[in-house]
């Protein structure tokens, strides 16, 4: 029953508040009348009776208000009325409301957009069941770094561990795949049998791998990604006819993996790793490993378990040396995927937080200025009986309204911003596909709005309700001195804004200087006018068939040279800045020392003085010419170096310098057979300039180049130096390749694209932090301007008196500028110390500058002070134009 009564009265209160109020009016009135009558009966005069009755009753309106507050649902009504009032209040000052809303929208929008990236990359769980139980397993090298795992070591870890319910190894490679609409270069993974069990997924169509697939009993089998099945196979329900030719071997498609399964990243095809056979070396790190923890096993326990096994392998292995594992390591898979991006993203999130703070400070200042105008209104409300809590609620409501409108606009903007961010993001940022404005991101945005609103509301409420009621009225009369407190607070806020802005802009400055330094680095080759063509012949092992691939490339290069406008054509196994070349250890062996047996060769590897480390590249003469890599001594490859002549090599300058510091490298003979399986000796015939293989920021890698026509290879990148239109060269080249063999996949790029992609993450960080810095600078400038302009308006009378008493224009200017300068300087000093403390966190992103680069600091401080001074100057100018007569009449 009472529940019904409550609901009924709630509904009645909400629907017919007027009726209830009328009822209350009559009741109170009758009460008053009865009181009067009683008093009259007690012998008072009519007037006295009324007075006594009113005293006993107290404030009629207050009683009514108290009754209203006690009613069910009264808070709904009062919140509604607060909102109505807040809307009216905000509409009264459309200009400053708009500025506040836009500022908040900017702050909340940008923060939400950046958070969506942070959430998508770092926080969102991987899309697998119980993804936090999936671990990445590593060997640890003698230098303490995590590395991939050798086959026998993996077998031991798999068989001996007590931490994982399933553990699997995998590696990936790029293969030429045909048998679909167009031949393509596709990422393929070799996976061991438990791979999909680790991820807890099943094929959506067909079946997974079974024991036979791994044992070469039947023909080779492959699983395909959902996207590949749809795009390249035409989504057939019946897989029995689906076959793919991967590097010339035919595989039957047996299953389709679920949508969204993307591990290892960008892999489209999965084949059983056991088809490859095992490499018995404990130092050939060919596989990565993942495992799913047993229930109740923690990461630490698994780590200790794997470590113990790894150390046991280390102690008992016959293959001692630097390449043997020292230890083992287990980290959550998600962490291992996002590891490198983590610090950068957190820096960006921190920077955007600063921007939000600057934005909030601006809004706080705006509200503060409005508040001093409203002092009188608030005082009246308090005099009429509004409690302090009621006023606080009113101000909080206004702040909530502001921040939710700003936040809603901001989130709308964030939708567009996220699309832009994803487009702008460097390709090496992992998990970009999981970045979007999702529910958790919206929840975050909502919390952000609430926090901002609570902060702003509390701030204004604390400011406005601290004084006595009488001060509110008195303040108005005192004119210029009335809000000394809020003026002071305004300047504190501006100083804080300047400090934060300084930190942001210095951060942006340091990143900008780093990019300039990076661009100053000479890459060691030409970047423009180069068209590249990735060609992938099927990979082969038979030496005779391989020789035919050398002939194929020779033909291709000869025909490409005929294209009008193409000046130089060459080929290389791996372009600089595009992943780099494989590296390995070579042995110095004189012609007459060549051992007859593999064991003899192995013995030479134990003589440290014979060894050298270098990258291994396969190239043609035209490659050096097209990229303009200079010949320093000796000669390039030429016609003398045919397939049957003695094999030759060209080395890079840094290798010559470091490996043969006091000798002439020309004429030396080396054996580098562990790179391509060819143990014939290579005679060094030339030294070429260094190239920055791994991007401008990494030092040039010492490199050994061998001749493509002596050491043929299936996948090469053809480089063409061309003056003419990229499109026409590309289409002609495509035609030539198709003519030679229509089944060969090819990909065209320009070297400028590769070069600028190598700077992608640097540019991404700079653009974002630069954007935050500039926005903060603009906001801080408007902040300074606002506070100064307000202060000048407030001091109009004082300035008028000064002018009337004979103050010169210069003095007034100095007075106002001096006041502004003090604020700015305090902000700058705090900002410098903040920057000194905080730029250390971006150290990992810097290149060629220190985190405390004096030039950047000086430049940014000058920029900031200049802008801030300008913002002060305009109000100061206005102050000098004050007419004393008008000023004194100002009130």
């Amino acid at each position, binding site marked *: *029953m009472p529940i019904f*009564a*409550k609901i009924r009265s709630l509904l009645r209160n909400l629907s017919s508040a007027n009726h209830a109020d009328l009822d*209350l009016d009559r*009741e109170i009135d009758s*009460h008053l009348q009865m*009181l009067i009558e009683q008093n009259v009966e007690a012998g008072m005069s009519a007037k006295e009776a009324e007075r006594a009755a009113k005293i006993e009753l107290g*404030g009629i309106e207050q009683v009514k208000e108290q*009754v209203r507050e006690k*009613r069910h649902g009264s808070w709904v009504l009062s919140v509604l009325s607060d909102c109505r009032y807040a809307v009216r209040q905000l509409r009264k000052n459309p200009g400053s409301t708009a500025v506040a809303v836009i500022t908040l929208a900017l702050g909340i929008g940008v923060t939400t957009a950046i958070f969506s990236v942070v959430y998508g990359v770092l926080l969102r769980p991987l899309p697998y069941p119980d993804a936090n139980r999936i671990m990445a397993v590593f060997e640890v090298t003698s230098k303490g770094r995590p590395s991939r795992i050798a086959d026998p070591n993996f077998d031991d870890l798999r068989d001996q561990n007590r931490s994982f319910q399933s553990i699997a190894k995998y590696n990936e490679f790029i293969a030429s795949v045909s048998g679909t609409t167009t031949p393509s270069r596709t990422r393929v993974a070799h996976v061991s049998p438990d791979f999909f069990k680790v991820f807890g997924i099943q094929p959506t169509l067909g079946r997974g791998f079974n024991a036979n697939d791994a044992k070469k009993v039947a023909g080779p089998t492959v699983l395909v990604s959902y996207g590949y099945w749809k795009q390249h196979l035409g989504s057939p329900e019946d897989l029995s006819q689906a076959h793919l030719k991967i590097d010339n071997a035919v595989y039957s498609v047996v299953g389709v993996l679920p949508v969204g399964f993307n591990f290892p990243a960008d892999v489209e095809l999965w084949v059983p790793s056991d088809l490859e056979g095992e490499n018995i070396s404990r130092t050939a790190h060919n596989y990565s490993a993942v495992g799913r923890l047993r229930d109740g096993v923690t990461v630490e326990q698994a780590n200790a378990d794997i470590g113990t096994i790894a150390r046991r392998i280390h102690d008992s292995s016959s293959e001692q040396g630097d390449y043997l594992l020292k230890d083992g390591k287990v980290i959550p898979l998600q962490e291992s995927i996002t590891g490198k991006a983590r610090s950068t993203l957190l820096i960006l999130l921190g920077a955007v937080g600063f921007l939000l703070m600057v934005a909030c400070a601006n809004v706080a200042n705006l509200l503060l200025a409005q508040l001093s105008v409203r002092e009188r209104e608030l005082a009246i409300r308090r005099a009429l009986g509004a409690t302090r809590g009621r006023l606080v609620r009113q101000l909080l409501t206004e702040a909530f309204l502001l921040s939710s409108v700003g936040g809603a606009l901001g989130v709308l903007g964030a939708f567009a911003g996220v699309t832009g961010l994803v487009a702008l993001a460097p390709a090496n940022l992992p998990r970009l596909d999981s970045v979007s404005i999702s529910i958790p991101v919206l929840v975050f945005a909502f919390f952000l709005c609430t926090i901002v609103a609570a902060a702003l509301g509390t701030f204004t409420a604390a400011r406005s309700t601290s004084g006595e009621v009488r001060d509110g009225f008195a303040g108005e009369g005192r004119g210029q001195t009335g809000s000394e407190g809020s003026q002071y607070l305004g300047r504190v806020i501006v100083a804080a804004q300047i400090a934060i802005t300084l930190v942001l802009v210095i951060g942006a400055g340091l990143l900008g200087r780093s990019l300039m330094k990076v661009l100053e680095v000479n890459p060691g080759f030409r970047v423009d006018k180069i068209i590249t063509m990735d060609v992938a012949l099927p990979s082969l092992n038979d030496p005779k068939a391989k020789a035919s691939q050398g002939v194929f490339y020779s033909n291709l290069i000869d025909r490409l040279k005929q294209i009008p406008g193409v000046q130089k054509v060459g080929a290389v196994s791996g372009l600089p800045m595009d992943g780099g070349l494989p590296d390995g250890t070579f042995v110095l062996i004189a012609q007459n020392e060549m051992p007859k047996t593999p064991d003899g060769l192995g013995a030479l590897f134990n003589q440290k003085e014979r060894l050298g480390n270098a990258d291994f590249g396969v190239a043609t003469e035209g490659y050096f010419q097209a990229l303009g890599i200079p010949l320093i001594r000796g000669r390039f490859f030429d016609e003398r170096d045919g397939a049957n002549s003695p094999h030759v090599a060209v080395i890079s300058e840094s290798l010559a310098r470091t490996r043969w510091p006091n000798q002439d490298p020309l004429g030396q003979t080396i054996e580098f057979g562990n790179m391509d399986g060819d143990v014939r000796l290579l005679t060094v015939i030339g030294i070429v300039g260094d190239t920055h293989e791994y991007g401008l920021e990494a030092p040039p890698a010492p490199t050994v180049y061998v001749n493509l026509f002596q050491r043929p290879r299936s996948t090469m990148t053809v480089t063409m130096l061309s003056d003419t239109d990229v499109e026409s060269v590309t289409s002609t080249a495509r035609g030539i390749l198709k003519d030679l063999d229509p089944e060969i996949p090819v990909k065209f790029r320009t070297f400028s694209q590769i070069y600028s992609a190598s700077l992608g993450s640097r540019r991404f960080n700079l653009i974002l932090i630069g954007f935050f810095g500039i926005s903060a600078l603009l906001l801080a400038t408007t902040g300074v301007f606002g506070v100064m302009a307000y202060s000048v308006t407030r001091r109009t009378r004082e300035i008028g008196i000064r002018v009337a008493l004979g103050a010169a224009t210069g003095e007034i200017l100095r007075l106002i500028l001096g006041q502004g300068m003090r604020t700015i300087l305090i902000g700058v000093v705090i900002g410098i110390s903040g920057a000194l403390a905080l730029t250390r966190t971006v150290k990992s992103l810097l290149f060629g500058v220190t985190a405390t680069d004096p030039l950047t600091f000086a430049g940014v401080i000058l920029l900031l002070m200049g802008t801030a001074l300008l913002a002060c100057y305009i109000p100061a100018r206005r102050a000098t134009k004050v007419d004393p007569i008008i000023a004194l009449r100002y009130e």
Partner: protein
Amino acid sequence: MLILKALVAGELHGLGISRRIQQISGGTFLVKPGSLFPALHRMEEEGWLSSFWGESENNRRAKYYRLSKSGLKQLEVDTERWGRITWAIAQALKSS
């Protein structure tokens, strides 16, 4: 609780309740309108009281309040609880 008690004897209007409480508490409690009316409206919404417009002794229209069944029950609960509290406090005072 006192308001509920005041209404046990029969329906009363606001002023009547106020006077009655003064009377039954021997003049100890003076309930001011500022507390009386919010309490009355609250109790009515809780369903402990019902109200109607009636004629006062002086033929003036006044709003009368009457105790409902659940109000009577509430009074019993309150009385019982109050008894316990006062007993407990008295015990505490005695023991020290």
